[in-house]
């Protein structure tokens, strides 16, 4: 990190240089990916099942290190960061997991406040915020419910609320509308667009839902067998 080149707006929010990823198996799940996303952009990531969408997102939300290449976030070379610095960086990223990852012993309210607790905020200070956000995703009445008593769509909205509570600089959503009806899907996407416009949040959404992609007319990246076959530079918006 060069302190004369701070985290400024002309720095890409996300930059991947020659990134490959291989799990324990022999084949690359992602091969030689180059990618630059400016701050405040809204981008779709699509591709067939198994193409590597979730794997690419894992690299971005720092759950995994690439086998090759470099991942830069907000101008920081992630491979050069200490564990403490990585934790701090993760707090600037909101993630909606494909499988939600809600904690089953915590209420809806507590699941949403988790990122705030992790960053050391006292319960008294964030109550209003959490309640507002829960109302906004339509869970105002289910605040004290445990995740297993919520429907799939409600769980999905809960995991979205958790990803947003910290007002992240980067929002990564993996199939965030997989379990909701088209109407709710649109509402969620509108929410993302609003967040992007109002707070300038950089947003990446992996989805299969072509109708939503068409409707929201944002840049699209397509993955095919681990290759980025159509990146944001070439897309026809």
């Amino acid at each position, binding site marked *: 990190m060069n302190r004369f080149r701070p985290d400024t707006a002309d720095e890409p929010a996300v930059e991947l240089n020659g990134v490959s990823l291989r799990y324990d198996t022999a084949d690359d799940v992602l091969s030689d990916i180059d990618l630059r996303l400016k701050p405040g952009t809204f981008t779709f990531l699509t591709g067939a099942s198994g193409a590597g969408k979730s794997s690419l997102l894992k690299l971005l939300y720092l*759950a995994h290190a690439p086998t090759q290449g470099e991942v830069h976030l907000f101008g920081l070379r992630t491979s050069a960061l200490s564990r403490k610095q990585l*934790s701090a960086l*993760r*707090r600037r990223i909101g993630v909606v997991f494909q499988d939600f990852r809600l*904690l089953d012993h915590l209420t809806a309210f*507590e699941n949403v406040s988790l990122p705030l607790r*992790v*960053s050391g905020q006292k319960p008294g200070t964030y*109550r209003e915020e959490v309640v507002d956000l829960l109302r906004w995703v339509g869970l105002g009445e289910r605040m004290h419910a445990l995740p297993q008593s919520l429907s799939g769509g409600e769980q999905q909205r809960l995991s979205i609320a958790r990803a947003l509570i910290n007002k992240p600089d980067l929002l990564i959503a993996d199939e965030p509308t997989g379990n909701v009806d088209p109407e709710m899907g649109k509402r969620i996407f509108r929410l993302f667009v609003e967040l992007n416009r109002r707070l300038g949040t950089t947003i990446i959404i992996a989805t299969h839902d072509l109708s939503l992609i068409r409707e929201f007319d944002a840049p699209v990246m397509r993955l095919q067998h681990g290759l980025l076959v159509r990146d944001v530079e070439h897309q026809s918006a």
Partner: protein
Amino acid sequence: MSKPTPLLPESDAREAALFFVVAALCFLAVLATLTARGTYTAAHAWSAQVEGEMTVRLKDTDRRGAEDAASIVRGLDGIRSSSVLSQEELNRLLAPSFGPGGIPAGVPMPILIAVETTQDAPAEAGVVTAALTDAGFNATAESHADYASEVQRALGTLRIAAIGIVVLLTATAIAVIAFATHAALLARRDIVDVLHLAGAEDRFIASLFERRFWTLGLKAGSAGSLVALAVTAMIVFSAQSAGTQSQLLPQLSLDFWDLVILAVTPVGAGLAARWAAGGTVNHSLKSVL
């Protein structure tokens, strides 16, 4: 809003099993330690007593001569007491050989002097024999320490065995606690992952588990320790009420050090569990980015 739910769930069946294992191991470790200590202390007391004893056999003399001999012995350095055994005492001593009727008349009986030596610089058997021989007695002194040396040797072995058993049990307890804690943690891997990806520092996550398992170890250790205390108290009580004070049987009593062992064990269990939890969390976190 009431107090927030702990980030780690209160407890589950797995923790109940872990609680039982820790409690049982602490119970066994405490009982083994107390028993080993009791046995060793009893045997040690017996041999220390025997160490300070000597018997002098006199031939060709009568009771009066024996009393003179006893007072000569009393006058030597390193002697605490010296007295001629009476006929009754001899009868009692020899009852296993001759029965309660006493020694039949006509059986040639030596006269015996029971001698107690001092603890520091005790008189040696040879010196006693020589002093009496010089005074014209036909006497042989024998130190009981000669018989006791067998027991001494056995006692040394016993001590090593006892320490070995206690060390082994303690090590097993720690290993099992670590292993069980590890398993319990892996089952809550989801929580570790979510906290980690939400930006929690390693320290933060580890301390959640450390606090939880420290309490668990402390509670389980206390339970095991308390049951061990109850069992020991019962043994002590029943031994006392039966009035049996057989000297070589493990003599359980509850002295200061026993109570220290009872108090330290739960803390040890808590620390072992805490250490295992911290180590496991840190290890599993280091394996992810």
